[in-house]
């Protein structure tokens, strides 16, 4: 079914309205011109005929004076069956001498020249006439008039016809306008749809090419080429990251292997050396973890709009799994969890990244919560979003925390004596951004927390 898009903001609606208005205007102007012309021509012909009638009678008067004129009128009156043509002759004293009407029309002057009059006919109807009056030699009054009813009817019929044709033309032009505009708008909408999907992260989207060689086909080709370029750049960046990972990890792999060999060859009877070997091994592991975290942040930021691997995920279920994992850790540290969640909360994302994001925040809370404190996890729906708040008891406000928390390698004053490199929250931010989540830090007296605003999956 074709849905007629009536929308003030729609270009299609505007184009259709323009078509209809133009069509209406043109047809109205044309109709008016034709009707006016027809009316003028009919009036002109009536006047010519009337003049001829008058002259005929006047010629009779000239030739045969009053008697001839009266006889001519009687013959004419006998022939006429209706009163489309009226005439009258008055005596000097105003009495009737002849004609086919009983009295002189009241709104016709004695020497009238094409005056419009109205007269009640024999059958009682009021008819419209155009009349001529003249005073003959000898003081006799003489008038002739022709009915304009037929002309008026023709004009009226023409007006009706014009109205009907205008209406039909308006509807047809509206339909034609709709069809033509729709073709154009459909192509624009197709491009808009691709742009929206690319903006949402589906970089594989391309505009379908129409067969016709026109500006839209050129536009589609240009957009597709631009998207190819973006995808290619994305791929190059990913390849660079992967190569970087490979080239750095391979020699580190050899270092780890050497450490292992040292460890097995040294044995347990040289504890001091064993300790050194363990330390070097731990440093290599720490280096790799730092490298991994930085690489994860960089590639997550690079991937940015690419959401081809995303799927609908229940964030509530995910959080449930992480609580099973971390609650025992909290208990070991005498920390309790307070949880409030709805039954479900579906978002669009990548499961492992979301697990890592929330895991980092919970671990941050576990690390920095004061002894005996409570970690609160609060999820609730807020319109089209799911809000996630994870907060812990802290031992005071942290200066500049808003500025440094999400900055790589920056750590708050309370973190200096705790393990870490200041990459946990920057990774949280990178993952949140990748998912179009808003993330913010809040501090309220003795509570510190992180809040996410996550668009719910449609």
């Amino acid at each position, binding site marked *: 079914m074709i849905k007629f898009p009536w929308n003030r903001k729609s270009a299609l609606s505007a184009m259709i309205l323009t078509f209809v208005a133009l069509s209406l205007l043109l047809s109205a102007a044309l109709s008016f011109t034709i009707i006016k012309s027809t009316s003028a021509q009919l009036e002109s012909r009536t006047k010519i005929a009337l003049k001829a009638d008058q002259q005929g009678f006047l010629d009779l008067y000239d030739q045969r004076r009053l008697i001839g004129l009266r006889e001519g009128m009687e013959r004419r009156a006998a022939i006429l069956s209706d009163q489309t043509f009226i005439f009258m002759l008055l005596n000097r004293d105003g009495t009737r001498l002849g004609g086919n009407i009983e009295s002189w029309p009241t709104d016709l002057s004695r020497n009238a020249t094409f005056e419009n009059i109205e007269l009640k006919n024999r059958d009682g109807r009021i008819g419209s006439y155009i009349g001529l009056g003249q005073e003959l030699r000898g003081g006799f009054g003489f008038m002739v008039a022709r009915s304009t009813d037929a002309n008026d009817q023709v004009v009226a019929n023409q007006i009706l016809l014009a109205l009907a044709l205008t209406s039909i033309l308006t509807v047809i032009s509206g339909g034609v306008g709709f069809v033509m505009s729709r073709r154009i708008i459909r192509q624009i909408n197709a491009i808009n749809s691709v742009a929206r999907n690319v903006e949402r992260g589906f970089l594989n989207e391309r505009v379908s090419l129409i067969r016709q060689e026109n500006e839209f086909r050129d536009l589609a080709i240009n957009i597709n080429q631009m998207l190819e370029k973006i995808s290619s750049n994305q791929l190059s960046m990913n390849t660079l990251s*992967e190569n970087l*990972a490979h080239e750095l990890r391979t020699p580190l792999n050899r270092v780890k292997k050497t450490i292992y060999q040292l460890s097995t060859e040294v044995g347990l009877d040289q504890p001091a050396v064993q300790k050194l070997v363990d330390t070097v091994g731990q440093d290599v592991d720490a280096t790799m973890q730092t490298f991994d975290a930085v690489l994860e942040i960089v590639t997550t930021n690079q991937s940015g709009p690419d959401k081809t691997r995303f799927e609908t995920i229940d964030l509530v279920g995910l959080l449930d799994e992480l609580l099973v*994992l971390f609650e*025992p*850790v909290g208990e070991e540290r005498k920390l309790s969890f307070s949880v409030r969640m709805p039954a479900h909360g579906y978002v669009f994302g990548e499961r*492992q990244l979301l697990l890592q994001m929330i*895991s980092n925040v919970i671990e941050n809370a576990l690390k920095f919560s004061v002894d005996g404190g409570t970690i609160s996890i609060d999820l609730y729906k807020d319109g089209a979003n799911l809000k996630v708040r994870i907060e812990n008891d802290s031992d005071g406000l942290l200066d500049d925390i808003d500025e440094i928390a999400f900055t790589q390698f920056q750590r708050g004053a309370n973190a200096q004596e705790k393990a870490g490199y200041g990459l946990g929250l920057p990774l949280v931010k990178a993952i949140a951004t990748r998912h179009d989540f808003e993330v913010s830090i809040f501090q309220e007296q003795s509570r510190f927390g992180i809040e996410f605003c996550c668009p719910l999956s449609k």
Partner: protein
Amino acid sequence: MTILIVEDDAETRMDIEAAAEELGLAYSSMSTLASALAFLEENNPTIVIADRMLPDGDGLDAVEALRDANASTLIMIVSALGRSQNRIEGFKKGADDYLTKPFDPVELRARMASLKRRAELVHNRDEVLTIFDLEIRRKARTVHRNQQHIALSPKEFELLLYLADNQGQLVTRSMLLENVWGLHFNPQTNVVDVHIGRLRQKIDAPFDVPILQTIRGKGYILELTKNDAARTV
């Protein structure tokens, strides 16, 4: 049981070959994707260990080809591409395990041993697992030790089951995170240690002979110590 090793880096390939020898597994080694695919057309290895960044392509292509041809081969990817996205990609293509370089040689051995055991279990998956006097019933999801019922939470049962499926073999923390909790990254806190500690409280603490051993810096093994094994014979 045979292993196909696909690795272009000579040193890493030698490490994997050494681990295979230690586990008593026959192996064949290839250094390119093309040679690996050609080998797979003629042979049916039980386990495949493949690198991703091969000179002539991505090792994941071999994984895909294997999965199309033979669903039962166990596959481990060993790669410098270690981001969680890379790991997920590997699992989605059909890999059974994913080890990131640089790896601890102990971790490599532990994971290869786990794959070997899984290959054995495919043909002989016991409903009842027994380690000394600990009895685990897989379908009923019950645990008894010395004929006493031990109540475990669902996650504790899964943790114990994974250790039991790999009994006698080292199981690393990352293996537990991946296989029990489905996490392909390393949390900063000692979550695994805490959960192992809780499990130990239930299955070891009330009894005389501990069966859940910690290998310092490496992981855990579900088995009797040598002393206990000698004592209880």
